[in-house]
């Protein structure tokens, strides 16, 4: 599924509900399907700074695609990071780097887009893009050496 399709699918899922309570319940449910980070990756270096809740995020590169796992001690944060992973998982680095994340606005979770440092969404997205960038850079330079 393309990144656009993924976003549309998520928007559709959320648009089924009018009520914030239902939206949040859905978000919390989604958190439960998060590809959970392996406990031994729950290290300080995988901790995303700037969140009130703790979020660990780990990435690996396989067949030119990036795969993420994550976890958080807050269930709403967990829902959000799982949303992001649903959108980004298994994509080539370039697509992740260039991805636009305004869709979060459309699903009625606008409050998480504000630049307050407490929610850390910005930090999460930044970290995912940084991973993608690192893999891409490595990939490109490996190629050159061939």
């Amino acid at each position, binding site marked *: 599924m393309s990144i656009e399709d993924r976003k549309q699918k998520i928007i559709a899922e959320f648009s089924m509900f009018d009520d*914030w*309570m239902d939206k*949040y*319940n859905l978000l*919390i449910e989604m958190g439960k399907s998060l590809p959970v980070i392996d406990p031994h990756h729950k290290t300080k270096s995988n901790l995303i700074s700037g*969140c*009130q*809740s*703790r979020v660990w995020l780990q990435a690996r590169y396989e067949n030119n695609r990036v795969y993420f796992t994550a976890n958080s*001690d*807050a*269930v*709403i*944060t967990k829902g959000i990071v799982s949303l992001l992973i649903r959108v980004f998982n298994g994509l080539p680095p370039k697509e992740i780097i260039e991805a636009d994340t305004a869709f979060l606005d459309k699903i009625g979770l606008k*409050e998480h887009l504000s630049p307050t440092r*407490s929610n850390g969404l910005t930090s999460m997205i930044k970290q995912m893009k940084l991973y993608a960038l690192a893999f891409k850079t490595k990939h490109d330079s490996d190629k050159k050496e061939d």
Partner: protein
Amino acid sequence: MTYDIEKIRGQFPILQREINGKSLVYFDNAATTQKPLSVIERVSAYYRNENCNIHRGVHFLSQEATQEFEDAREKVRGFINAGRKEEIIFTKGTTEAINLVAYSFGRNILGQGDEVLITALEHHSNLVPWQVLCREKNAFLRVVPINNKGEVVQEAYKKMLGPRTKMVAIGHISNALGTINPVREMIAAAHEKNIPVLVDGAQAASHIKIDVQELDCDFYCFSGHKAYGPMGSGVLFGKTRLLESMDPYQCGGEMVDRVTFEKTTYNELPFKFEAGTPNVESILGLKTALDFMDSLGMDSIGSHEKALLEYGTEQLARDPDITIYGTADRKTSIISFLFKNIHPYDAGIIFDKTGIALRTGNHCAQPVMDRLGISGTIRVSFGAYNTIQEIDRLVESIGMVKKMLG
């Protein structure tokens, strides 16, 4: 005089606001208070009719605004009962005031191996400046412990006042737990050993009557924005003798007397410490804010808030899923708590969705959290305009939080 809560609420336009379809319950007063109409209108009137740069202008606007500005200084003097108007220095807030003292006073009195004493309750603003100073001077930052109720252990404090202690810096009221420290006794104990004391009154100014002469503190500071005044207004009180002995902090316009490239002589108090164009707007607004509090009476505000604290504590204490942090014998206006098994951040989001503005996190007091073995709390903090009904709204929302997240 009765405390007419509806009339008081009527003076705060923001309380009419709806958030997420619910009328706003503002319980984040320890972060910043809302502003009464009189303050908002004072600021607006200033810009409409009076705005100008003060102190050195001969024109009418400048004379008029200078007069108002200096009247505000006199008002602040009276509000905290300082002996002299020159002892009132305007800053942009508590943080700047403490940095000023650490820089202009602390650097002079602190030598290698000396000690600065703070408590485990301090806000970062009354901790990091001393930490940086101590590092620069190869001195030691000593921290008086707190007990499980969140009270500073007085026996420990007295023992820690040692021969190398050169400065004590203590909060009047803890912003994380609401504890009121016995500052008068703590100051007396320090003075017995000739140690000067700074009191961080950021959380006190809007809740209790402050009398710097009675406290006999050497420095006292607070922020206007936490006391119904505009942002950007702050106060540093200092004893004349100490202020006179200190070098300036920031340098520039206003704080100088005579400037040549070879040498600069400084202006007299309080101007020596007020470099740059003063924030006239915020200081005039601060005066109006102090007038507002005086019109209610600090005692009346205090008893109203006490009733809220008692009722709120009662309601929360009754819930077996809630733990209250900070149970000092003397506390005010703040309830910090946690749910069992619910992350405060999650709870904060649900509270917000139900129209309740409160704060979650470490409240710029990470060491307090470390001491309590938690990463943060949910903090409800009251102001003069809060009501029992709003606490009932909080209790309702607690139900919602538990339903969704429990």
